[in-house]
């Protein structure tokens, strides 16, 4: 019978409980010893000493999401280009080179598409 998973379970339990202990102690201390005196200034959010105005909720611009998508696509492209640029430039056969050029062409097309659809402009 193998005890591997048992060891792992114990480790997991300790890993969860260990950081919770100080937090629990702090909470208990606060409950027993500290007075309950909430105040407007004490509860306000910290803004480098300046008084906060307005609410903390601003409308999230959905355009960030489109940017993140476009970034993701081109970032993955860069990752794929890395080995090609780094050391494969003189060592891959013609077919590989053509395949990579096709890959770049596809991504160029997607850039053109994103540009034409107006995704690259902030709205």
């Amino acid at each position: 019978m193998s005890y591997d998973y048992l060891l792992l379970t114990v480790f997991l339990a300790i890993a969860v409980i260990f950081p919770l202990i100080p937090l629990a102690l702090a909470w208990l201390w606060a409950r027993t010893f500290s007075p309950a005196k909430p105040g407007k200034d004490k509860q306000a959010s910290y803004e480098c000493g300046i008084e906060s105005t307005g609410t903390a909720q601003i409308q999230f611009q959905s355009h960030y999401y489109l940017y993140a998508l476009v970034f993701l696509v081109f970032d993955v492209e860069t990752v794929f280009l890395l080995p090609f640029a780094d050391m494969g430039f003189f060592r891959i056969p013609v077919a590989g080179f053509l395949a990579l050029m096709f890959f770049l062409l596809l991504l160029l097309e997607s850039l053109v598409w994103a540009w034409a659809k107006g995704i690259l402009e902030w709205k």
Partner: protein
Amino acid sequence: MNDTLHLLKLLAPESILLDTSLLILVLGLIPATATKRNLLLCITLLGGLLAGAWLFFVPENANLFHGMVVLDPLTRLVKVAVLVLSLITAVFAVGSNVREHFGEYLALILFSTIGMMLLAGTEDLLMIFIALEMTSIPLYVLTGYLKRSSASAEAALKYFLIGGVSAAFLLFGLSLIYGVTGSTSLHDLGGMSRDAALDPLLLAGVVMAMVGFGFKVAAVPFHLWAPDVYEGAPTSTAALIASGSKVAGFLILAKLLTFGFAAADGNAGWAQMLPGWLPLLAILATASVVVGNLAALSQSNVKRILAYSAIAQSGYMLIGLTAAGKNGVSSVVFYVIVYALTTLGAFGVVSLVEQRRGGSQLHHFQGLHKSAPGLAFCMGVFMISLAGIPPLAGFIGKFYLFASALGSASSNGNLPLLWIIVLAVAFNAVSLYYYLIVLKHIFVIPSSVESAAPEPRSATSTLVGLLALAVFVLGLYPSLLLEPISSAYTSAVKFSIKSGSAMR
């Protein structure tokens, strides 16, 4: 180089579709003109026809990467069917209410089609998942395409959330199966012994995989997305979901269950149930038939009626799957293709009525036999075929399904699967009621709206007429489709034994 070219040649249809979609994406950027939509449609059709021609005229069988891509006559036949269905959907899209981003719409349809074709041609668990996602994700986007319609957005969200959860179930199940058996290829799975198949972990994996597929084919209880999606999505998207994704989904489900999980089948007979996917399939099937037909009785929107009808029809096809074996797979493939043609036609009529009358509730169809008698007649053909009344194709399909299922386990007058067939035949009779209600509104109830000038012919209506003709001809002469399917199956088995893929 040779290998790459060979791979390209084998996967040429998918590649051609991919190139077509990329071309359409680029061309979709030109400013809108009167002919832009038709130009894009023509390119789509050209690409699709080229891909289809390749499938027809380059009949090379292959088994690549240990089952990841399998080309044999049966998969080629289903790929051609899926291609035809998608092209018809694209034609419907041109006349529909999708106005903005039309190039992307067609491109997404093609992406989904590529996914369906890959799904039809694979026998590997991982590839199944990839192809399934490749089919579904464009469909999620296509569902939410009408940006100004809240119904469309709601439908897309429901579809995506439920689809995502089901995909998670599917992946977890497939990974459990991989963990137990050590292989992702259906061929290796098929070689499993019956003792090994009783492993609880494996059965759990099978059940979870069926959850994923149950969502795809809209089986009860994984059907809750279907009515809202069919109603809210643009009609051409709903048509694609109802037709193409079902065809590919059922073929791969048939192959997975019949050949991959053959050892874990169990028994669904009335007094002799054994654990496995057969009793699960039987329960899913009968539940779908019952719930789908009963829920459709009270609907007032024709698209929702078609959605619940789709759920019930999935039930009938799942019943055919319980036959497992040549009859099971052939009957399911035949019926799913016939059903896809019929439902495409019905959605075409709905799309035309939506454009001309502004909605797809039952009362929008009133008086259609006066203003568009041809369309009304075609809708009659589709509804009656869906109800399974001879001499139309739906009846032969249902008959073949039920006969295969009943005959698969029978011996000497004993019919253990009779309980399934009794429920199916009974609720099939019930279904005639709601199909007749649609026809009643079309043919019997006079319209309360002044009818406009006679409707102009369009590409959509011509296609609808052709589909009605196809349903009628297949009903009178079903061998047109049955023979190719049957011979494709036999050749596929021969090839598979030779090349080491899963079919037996």
